[in-house]
């Protein structure tokens, strides 16, 4: 399932690269998305700690946009 989704992503990226795309959100229209409340990872130290807790309590790992190191959480 994940492999199929990845293939779909790669195909769509290739298709997109073939046509010129102009930014549809102009730089002067980006004040809201530049607001601090729109940051995915506003405080990295706090976010990475919570990901560490998730990794220790759950079998799942990755797919959360975070990089991690080994922690001996086995």
């Amino acid at each position, binding site marked *: *399932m*994940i*492999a199929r*989704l*990845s293939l*779909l*992503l790669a195909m*769509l*990226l290739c*298709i*997109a690269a073939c046509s010129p*795309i*102009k*930014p*549809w*959100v102009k*730089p002067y*229209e*980006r004040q*809201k*998305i530049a*607001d601090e*409340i*729109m940051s*995915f990872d506003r*405080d*990295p*130290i*706090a976010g990475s*700690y*919570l990901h560490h*807790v998730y990794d*220790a*309590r*759950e*079998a*799942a*790992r*990755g*797919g*959360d*946009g975070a*990089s*991690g*190191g*080994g*922690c*001996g959480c*086995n």
Partner: protein
Amino acid sequence: MVVINRLLILGLMFMASIAHAAVLPDERIDILYHGYDGGGAQIDGPSILVRKSIGSSVSVAANYYVDMVTSASIDVEATASPYSEERKEQGLSAQYMVDRSTISVGYVSSKENDYDATTYSLGIDQSFFGDLTTLGFGVSFGEDIVGQNTDPTYKRDLQRRKYSINASQIITKNLLASLSFDSASDQCLNLADTESCLNNPYRSVRFLTGTGGYAYQGEIYPHTRNSDAVGLRLMYFLPYRASLRAELRQFSDSWGIESENAELRYLHPYGERFLFEVKYRIYDQTGADFYADLFPFRDAQNFMARDKELSPFSSTVLGLGVTYKVPAGTIPWFEKSTVNLYWDHFNIDYDDFRDARVSPTEFAAGSEPLYSLDADVIRFYLSFWF
């Protein structure tokens, strides 16, 4: 599940034509106290992050993190003695920005008395389409040495690999999206078939003895584990100044575990000084193929595990938090400072992990009550920008 799949495909379609211009991260200092209390384990300690730019194109960061563990968890109470230990982690990273690309390198070292882990990472991000789209690739290599306090000769070598693709996209003036795919593999090195490196060497499985009772023997794990995870995150700026973040993730691995989780977070500024956050997360996973709470007899399978993190379970997390922005000028040298307190409450209900601490005269083997766990996680931190 179907809904998650559909949303993921929808997200992929948005990613087709691809979020932020290449900019260096903020110069800042963060000082965090973290605390975990649940299931008989208390883990707390500090974490410090310092990030500084050198010139206009290089940013370096250093992180120091400590876990101080006191554990009398259900695993420990069943087959071992309560213990205390300390884990120290040190990390260094650097980012080099050139035009619309950012190259990142990182190094993390984690040490405790029975586990050493070293991780090296390399990544590159590139923005496209007037900085509406950012595409990133990353790879990390890890080398771990697993030890055991009760046996000085016990030493297991473990190699970790992770490959990542991240795409982030400005979709509208109010909507951001980020899609992440990670593929990870763990590989034991130089091990005999009867040895394991991917498990906790202190943990045991239990099996029926044939006389109505049960006994314990050591776990045996496969020597490899491969996993894939894909996650989609969306962030929406509401019609008033507040944001809503949604996160969906799907995971599967070569041990037969599949999981999904979803999270919704609401962030609301109040006045000029406060940010309030409320969050709810649900998580669900199936068990590993070789997991059992109670095996029918000794050596029942070639691989055997009784790690509750490999068992089927579902969990919820409720999180509340507040950030206070200290008035400028209150703390000299810093342009901006914040005080932050975040609390998360975990509730985990295990579907096939029984509480074997109960009296065997009261409960027959395999009919003990299912285990559940509540945990509180505190993050209190100060952040300073300069």
